[in-house]
């Protein structure tokens, strides 16, 4: 009896988390999948069925938006990494005792609502705003130039909003690097560049990996940046889901699109983890 309870103890202790997962993850997910297969309308209610046509319809109608979301997500994540790495590196290695101040400054913009931050960019980047307006007055760019309503405005918005989410995991990884390892590399006649590429980057791999997931997954599903900063031809799948769910009351379509987005993301993450796998990360970290 005592043995049995000892064997069961870990499961009993983790029971609350299992219940939590079931109630807040499995059940909503299941009902979303169910709704995607249902037939009916919001007036008369929905009936469960095995109507898979919503999926093929969703894909044939919106494959371009799916593809675009993944491309925007990938490009914005790579740009974020390129910007975030030096920032995290500088704070971790040269931040001194002000490290926490710098980190605080980094998350400071997050004290303002997400939507307001994006709206602020709309204002800053407007055709006659103080960036483009000044450049135009100086004659550096043509009068017709604009940034808003283009894909670069959307990708820029995604980068801006995900910067802190990439810097923080990178900082944690870089902070943990034993400085004596870097010294050892120098002692062994590694140039600073080689020490950086052969020692520091591999040792920060867990941060790169974690940040990539965090930022990529969020950005692929984003709809606020495309809605506010984008124009014709920059619609992302998140916008389509929001429209069909909220404005058009086409719940099965919205559910089918959401399920497909999740499924595609899981495949992408699986492939990514396979290629840049957690095993290798363990090796690096060890």
């Amino acid at each position, binding site marked *: 009896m005592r043995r049995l309870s000892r064997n069961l103890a870990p499961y009993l202790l983790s029971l609350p988390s299992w219940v939590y997962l079931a109630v807040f993850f499995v059940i909503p997910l299941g*009902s979303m999948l169910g*709704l995607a297969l249902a037939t009916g*309308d*919001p*007036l*008369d*209610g*929905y009936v469960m069925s095995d109507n898979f046509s919503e999926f093929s319809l969703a894909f044939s*109608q919106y494959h*371009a*938006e799916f593809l675009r979301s993944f491309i925007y997500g990938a490009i914005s994540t790579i740009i974020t990494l390129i910007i975030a790495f030096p920032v995290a590196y500088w704070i971790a290695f040269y931040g001194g005792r002000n490290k926490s101040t710098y980190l605080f400054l980094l998350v400071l913009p997050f004290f303002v609502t997400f*939507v307001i931050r994006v*709206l602020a960019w*709309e*204002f800053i980047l*407007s*055709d*006659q*705003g103080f960036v483009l307006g000044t450049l135009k007055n100086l004659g550096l760019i043509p009068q*017709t130039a*604009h940034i*808003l*309503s283009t894909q670069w405005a959307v990708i820029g918005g995604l980068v801006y909003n995900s910067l802190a989410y990439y810097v923080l995991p990178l900082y944690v990884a870089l902070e943990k690097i034993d400085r004596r390892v870097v010294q050892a590399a120098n002692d062994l006649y590694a140039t600073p560049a080689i020490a950086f590429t052969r020692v520091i980057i591999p040792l920060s791999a867990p941060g790169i990996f974690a940040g990539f997931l965090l930022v990529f997954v969020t950005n692929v599903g984003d709809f606020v940046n495309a*809605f*506010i900063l*984008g*124009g*014709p*031809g920059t*619609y992302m799948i998140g*916008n*389509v889901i*929001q*429209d069909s*769910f*909220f*404005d*058009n*009351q*086409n*719940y099965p379509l919205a559910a089918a699109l959401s399920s497909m987005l999740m499924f595609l993301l899981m495949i992408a993450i699986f492939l990514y983890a396979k290629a840049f796998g957690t095993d290798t990360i363990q090796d690096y970290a060890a």
Partner: protein
Amino acid sequence: MSKSSPPEGQNLAFLRGLTQPRLSRSDFMRGAAASFAAMALSGTGPADAATVTNWKAWWEAQKPTKEFIFANWPLYIDVTSNGKDHPSIDTFTKQTGISVTYDEVIQDDPSFYAKVAPVLKSGQPTGYDMMVITDGWYLTELLLQKFLVPLWREKVPNFNKYAGASVKNPSYDPGNKHTMVWQSGLTGIGYNPKLTKREITSLDDLWDPAFAGHIGMFSDTNEIGSFGMLKLGINPTTSTPADWTKAAAVLQDQKDKKLVRQYYDQSYINALQNGDIWITMAWSGDIYQANSKGYKDLKFVVPKEGCSIWHDNMCIPVGAKNPLSALAWMNYYYTPDVAGIIEDYVNYICPVPGAKDYILNVIKDPDVANSPLVFPPQSSFAKTHEFRAFKSYAEYQTWVNTFSPIVES
């Protein structure tokens, strides 16, 4: 109303009613959460709220009450300078002894519908005796599900006496059986003459290659679809799915030629003020507000082909506890005095034309009384068209599927 002039000076009372954002998407987070709740419950199907068959008998069985709970949009009624009291409501209470709870809870139609629909579907009272809903799919959805109490018109004699022609017998509620208009508004063209370098008179100007990349259109399918049809000379109110397809083709053409800068929600007004767009679909009230905020160049015009008119409607949800008070309020509102007092603050389009004289002679506020946007001349009304009222969810989905590919890309 070939064009409107900005009001003289900074009349705060005049501006108050113009600040309300319409069809706001910015709080979609909250709305989406509410929709989840609606969706979760939608599987239960229509409930027993609509079991009353003889409404005349139901009305006659109602006893007068001394309470009235009114759900409305923000900044949509007269307010004293301390920001707390509503003189029109206080007078109503004085006259009738009915105490009013005035709730500014409606931010936009979809999210408010998502809040009340699950309650109505489960046959429970919403807690409101009156709510104000814009004509469109959500109002239709309430009507189709019989969630609105048919009005006892004999108790609202002032409607027949004072209501303007534009609010009588609307296409979405023939004979005003369930609704009476609170305020109306126009969707026309807003533009900056300094950038367009000429006056705008026609919908064709929204398709003018000279403005390529600086034209704004609305992302709301009701709005953009109606404009596509007006451009083709089709009356949106009575249009057929074949007309919708034609309108979608014109709008698609406009997009393919890269004329459209963006499909906007209410944020178009920022883009117009910033100069990002030169000419755009616009709500009259927004241009007025922009004028008085200092963007004096901007103009609003009712294009010669016509424009859209929307109505926000008072209606009584099934399960209302004080329906007779709601009728008393409707009757009270539809008088030149009361409509005038409220209109002097709200400044959309007044449903009671007689309020003009009251505002001019009693309140002595000629800016509002003489404004062609608050009291449009008959010639303007002749050019306005209501949105197409959908007969079923399937028809609404046909509309959405016709026009959403244009804004979604």
